[in-house]
């Protein structure tokens, strides 16, 4: 897979991890406003990464990528076990 897509996916992984951690923390600390604000910023950044990946023609999500890439990237871009 191209270097650009791999770099965006790497950023998605790191930023996505911070979102998961914030989500789990907020599950047990729902009134922690500072973390809530951080989470909102992380999610905003994640959306931008989603968009850049889509612009590269990579379909990331099975049901939520709108519009689906006009190429057949869902079928032909590598699956996680086909990478690395």
């Amino acid at each position, binding site marked *: 897979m191209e270097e650009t897509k791999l770099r965006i*996916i*790497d950023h*998605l*992984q790191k930023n*996505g*991890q911070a979102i*998961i*951690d914030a*989500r*789990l*923390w907020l*599950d*047990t*600390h*729902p009134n922690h406003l500072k973390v809530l604000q951080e989470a909102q910023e992380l999610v905003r950044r994640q959306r931008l990464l989603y968009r850049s990946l889509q612009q590269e023609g*990579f*379909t*990331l*999500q*099975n*049901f*939520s990528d709108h519009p689906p890439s006009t190429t057949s990237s*869902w079928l032909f*871009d590598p*699956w*996680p*076990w086909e990478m*690395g």
Partner: protein
Amino acid sequence: MWIYEKRLQYPVCINKKDVTMARYLITQYGGPDGELAASLRYMTQRYTIEDRSAIALLTDIATEELAHLEMIATMVYKLLEDATPKELESAGLGTYFVDHGRDLVYTNGDGIPFTSAYLASKGDPIANLYEDIAAEEKARAVYEKLILMTDDTALQDSLRFLREREIIHSQRFREVLERLKDNTTR
């Protein structure tokens, strides 16, 4: 409803062909303390627990465990991908290969099939949360052993990530449990 993302939660790289390691790893796929058991355990506890934090946490951790399941699957798949039948046999996977080829099967390391008895659901919030914390600690202990069983530093790195996630999950479950215990007259 779930949405799939075509990426791993954390990268999995395998530098070294090691069929025996695949056999050890498969217990985290379909064994008693594996990721399938974890995900299904939390998923099914959500309906009766009532506490809002607990429902959210069980949903979110159950979802994350599916991403871990995919990481383990990727490790096992990559380790078995190029192995010859003879190599599989010498790693103790001869009968596995005859029965399943290179398909990933939900079993423990000795080939015992997954059972929902692993979920140990009790219909009691306190008992279930103690079970969840124990499950996370047992999975952590398994990952620590798995790290010792390989000298592939790339694989160790992915396993260390999974070990750390168990610690985070255990911590979050403890927070819910302690609050529920405080609110319960015992």
